């Protein structure tokens, strides 16, 4: 667990949107401290100080000391409301935690060994399914990060929660063996595979048609062998995709009006 950071706050006397807006107009961020079955404390914090903390990894998994006029509250950040356009914080929730409080907390995941992974070295992409994992743990025992080793993953492999060593006393909130990350094939490889599959399918179709044509030729010798195999492979792949793509590109009902 990381060291506890202190954030300075000031008490505010009124609740509600009018008071919160007044706090914002005065250049501060309104917030609240709740929990532990005690009355909530209304506060304001300095936006710059909060912004710096927000961009630290695992902000929501880190205990803070919220200091109001000499009184320190041991609290966990639970929610931050951000302006949708500027992404500046507009409100923050802190939850008081006691020594024995058990809480659900989103712990950030760190991926190690990407340079050793054979899949990534071959051009694969680490597809992160979960950037954070929700864990149930005691407030004194919040891990600051979960390290996931991806050094042995090849293209198509994935790493699940059961393969990850979680710190003692913590338990994921999701009971099943969920995926944390996988190594996906790069776009170039996927395109090559798709092209190879299309070519194989075309070849199989051509072979089948040639066989059918051969059977017909057996019935009427001299007519079919030259015509059927040559026509089939070129016609089918070239015609269909172009026509389908053309139809999809136009807005619905174009040409009717």
């Amino acid at each position: 667990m990381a060291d506890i950071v202190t954030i300075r706050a000031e008490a505010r006397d009124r609740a509600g949107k009018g008071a919160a807006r007044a706090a914002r107009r005065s250049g501060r961020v309104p917030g609240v401290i709740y929990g532990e079955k005690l009355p909530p404390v209304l506060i304001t914090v300095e936006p710059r100080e909060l912004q710096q903390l927000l961009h630290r990894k695992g902000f929501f998994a880190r205990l803070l000391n919220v200091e109001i006029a000499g009184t320190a509250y041991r609290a966990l950040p639970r929610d931050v409301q951000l302006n949708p356009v500027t992404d500046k914080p507009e409100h923050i929730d802190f939850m008081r935690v006691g020594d024995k409080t058990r809480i659900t907390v989103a712990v950030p995941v760190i991926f190690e060994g990407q340079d050793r992974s054979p899949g990534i070295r071959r051009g694969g992409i680490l597809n992160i399914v979960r950037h954070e994992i929700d864990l149930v743990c005691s407030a004194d025992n919040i891990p600051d990060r979960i390290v996931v080793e991806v050094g042995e993953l090849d293209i198509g492999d994935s790493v699940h929660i059961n393969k990850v060593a979680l710190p003692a006393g913590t338990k994921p909130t999701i009971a099943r063996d969920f995926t944390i990350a996988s190594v996906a094939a790069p776009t170039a490889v996927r395109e090559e595979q798709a092209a190879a599959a299309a070519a194989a399918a075309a070849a199989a179709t051509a072979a089948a048609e040639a066989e059918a044509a051969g059977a017909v030729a057996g019935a009427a010798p001299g007519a079919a062998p030259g015509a059927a195999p040559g026509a089939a492979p070129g016609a089918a792949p070239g015609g269909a995709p172009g026509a389908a793509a053309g139809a999809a590109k136009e807005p619905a009902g174009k040409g009717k009006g």
Partner: protein
Amino acid sequence: MLSPKRTKYRKAHKGRIHGEAKGGTALNFGNYGLKATEPGRVTARQIEAARRAITRHIKRVGRVWIRIFPDVPVSVKPAEVRMGSGKGTPEFWVCRVKPGRIMFELEGVPGPTAREAFDLASAKLPVSTRVVTRLGEEAI
């Protein structure tokens, strides 16, 4: 280019874009994103041009998500046609974008590369944009 498979109605009103985005304002997939900071109508062509600019700059490593979809048909009247006689024919698709909307997300590339890619993409779009970073990642 993106377009709906089928629609309930062929033509739509022009409409006006008011207010700020109330959804799709946070990064959901990647570590970096391109956020609109003004309202506008982004066409399917512009989305495709921006996507190409991003994928070509990142040299096909990493992963790109497109978080907007052009589902509004725009109709145009033919040239040299007098006013009246009904609405024109649908010609292209647009997406109405409000400020705050994440339009593209990117993962699997270093921060500076992501910023360069988004700068190129932004030049293809009709709205002003801002590059955003996931909370807990260093801002680029």
